[in-house]
């Protein structure tokens, strides 16, 4: 186990604990303190990047449960996020229901849509499933673009800010707290999910679905459950995204975004709780960095082609995905656990 020498468990509660040693608790406290005092000294721009990172972590955690734990590749995650975003927008704007109803409703609707498109996973896998989720992505976006009466179609749709009781969360800082609380809850639940009966069933299905079925794991139940949970979290992320941007357009949820999510969990490390967080941090900061640096480069080298700013980002991500798959297939999470192990064993 990944515990320092001399730490023993004397009961099951200790054995199961996520935070085991005093050092764990101290680190957790420091991290949380840094996180929640962040808005005091971060500027608005940093905060908005942090908010986007939080939302993306929720979505990536969902995809990680589906792809990383259960092994069902989905290239339609942005589509499911879009379902959640529009569901939340419609619930809070057209029906004028409270934010929390919109949040849970968005998750539920996205989860159900995910289950519908996950049904083929009972008979097919690998590439077939990838294609049917691509089909899901296109069908969802097409419906959003054409169901003008409900979604606003190509013109998009404005979304009211989050309203909890009498509180209206307009500023980045106030949304930061909301998003981070949900992120922490989701990550905590995801960590525990991986250790429950369902989580172990997911891993068994990922490793060999036939063997899992022979052992008595109901593929029907657990594959669809994985789709539901994965897309539920996508819906939650979509809801937060809708309120965060304030304006929805199907342009925000392209197939390239879906691929980006797959890239995120690969870079972070499939099938680990910490992986999606690393992946999102790397990708979103990289995006932000490229956005900042490319005008500077363009100013320095005026002969660059005109599409430099638009093109360099996808190129870098494409290369990152390829390099990670070839050289670090277990992602940053593995690197992180190696680092922790060597820290524990230091100076040996």
């Amino acid at each position, binding site marked *: 186990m990944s515990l320092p020498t001399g730490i023993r468990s004397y009961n099951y509660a200790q054995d199961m604990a996520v935070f085991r040693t005093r050092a764990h608790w101290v680190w957790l406290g420091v991290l949380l303190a840094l996180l929640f005092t962040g808005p005091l000294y971060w500027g608005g721009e940093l905060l908005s990047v942090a908010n986007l990172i939080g939302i993306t972590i929720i979505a990536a955690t969902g995809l990680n449960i589906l792809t990383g734990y259960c092994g069902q590749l989905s290239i339609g995650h942005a589509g499911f996020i879009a379902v959640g975003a529009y569901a939340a927008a419609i619930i809070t704007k057209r029906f004028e229901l409270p934010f929390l109803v919109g949040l849970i409703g968005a998750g539920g609707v996205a989860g159900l849509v995910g289950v519908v498109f996950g049904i*083929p996973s009972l008979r097919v896998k690998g590439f077939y499933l*990838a294609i049917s989720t691509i*089909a899901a992505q296109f069908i969802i976006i097409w419906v959003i673009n*054409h169901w003008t009466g409900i979604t606003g179609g190509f013109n998009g749709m404005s979304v009211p800010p989050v309203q909890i009781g009498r509180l209206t969360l307009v500023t980045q800082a106030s949304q930061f707290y909301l998003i981070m609380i949900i992120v922490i809850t989701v990550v905590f639940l995801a960590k525990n999910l991986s250790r429950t009966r369902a989580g172990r069933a997911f891993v068994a299905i990922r490793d060999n679905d*036939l*063997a899992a079925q*022979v052992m008595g794991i109901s593929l029907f139940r657990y594959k669809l459950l994985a789709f539901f949970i994965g897309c539920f979290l996508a819906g939650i992320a979509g809801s937060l995204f809708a309120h965060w941007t304030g304006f929805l357009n199907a342009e925000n949820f392209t197939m390239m975004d879906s691929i980006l999510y797959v890239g995120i969990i690969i870079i972070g490390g499939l099938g680990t709780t910490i992986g999606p967080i690393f992946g999102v941090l790397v990708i979103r900061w990289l995006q932000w960095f490229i956005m900042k640096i490319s005008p500077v480069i363009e100013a320095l080298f005026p002969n660059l082609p005109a599409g430099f700013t638009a*093109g*360099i980002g996808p190129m870098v991500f494409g290369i990152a995905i390829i390099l990670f798959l070839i050289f670090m*297939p277990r992602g940053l999470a593995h690197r992180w656990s190696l680092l922790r192990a060597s820290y524990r064993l230091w100076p040996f």
Partner: protein
Amino acid sequence: MAELSQFAITGITVGMVYALIALGFVLIWKSSGVANLALGQLVLVFSWFTYGMLVQVGFPVWVGIPLVILFALGVGWLVERLTLRPLIGQPILALITVTLGVAFFIEGLVSLVWPKSVAALPRLFPEEPIHIGAAVVSQEYLWAAVISVILFVLLTLFFKYHRMGIIMRAVADDQMAVQACGIPVAKVFSRSWMFACVLAAVGGILMSSIGGITFGLVGTGLRAFSVVILGGLDSFLGAIVAGPIIGLAENLGGGYLTPLTWPGVREIIPFVIIVIVMFIRPHGLFGERRIERI
């Protein structure tokens, strides 16, 4: 009636181009078991490269098109050598996602080198439309169909009689046995990628001579997925049959369903077909139904 035959002819001819692109997919899938999800982006980049050669550099067609084919061969070789070769033996998830990485890279490359989102190729085929019965069809469609058929025939002959073609079929049948016979399997992988890229390039040129170069060409590549799903992943015949079916469904559906549903129903039909096939007959019309063992 004129309308019907109009839709049918355009549908079938465009469908043949889809089939052509899909053949490239099937080739890679059969020989190396890799699903090439970068197909749409490959079609896009080859079309833009054709534009670059014919319009930006200004080569005549007989110089430009062979250069595009050479470029396609090079791209196919590079993709296989740099991304797929190091991953031989890795789980299928890695093999699929690495092509997604390639797709991402190519899309970035295209918007870097050709930031214009729309362009038109110079006319490759004569301009005046042809009357077939009551239908009026522009010549691009017919030429696309003719070129596709020629390539189908050439490929069929290649697989039947050429040494490399026979080796490719053997690899598709049993990789281990072929390797045991002393045939370099990795070389076959790289050849099949090169072939697939050439097919994508030809398909891209034909499609963009019909509809111009737009990001919609990525969608053309994606339609090829619905062709392979409908026809069966591991069947050349399936791709050739399913291509016109998809084209036909797309055009007839687009023509007759639009008044009944939302406009633009045409672009979604191939994806709906994918979902329907997945539910009813996931191995497709001609695909092999695999029985799995633990």
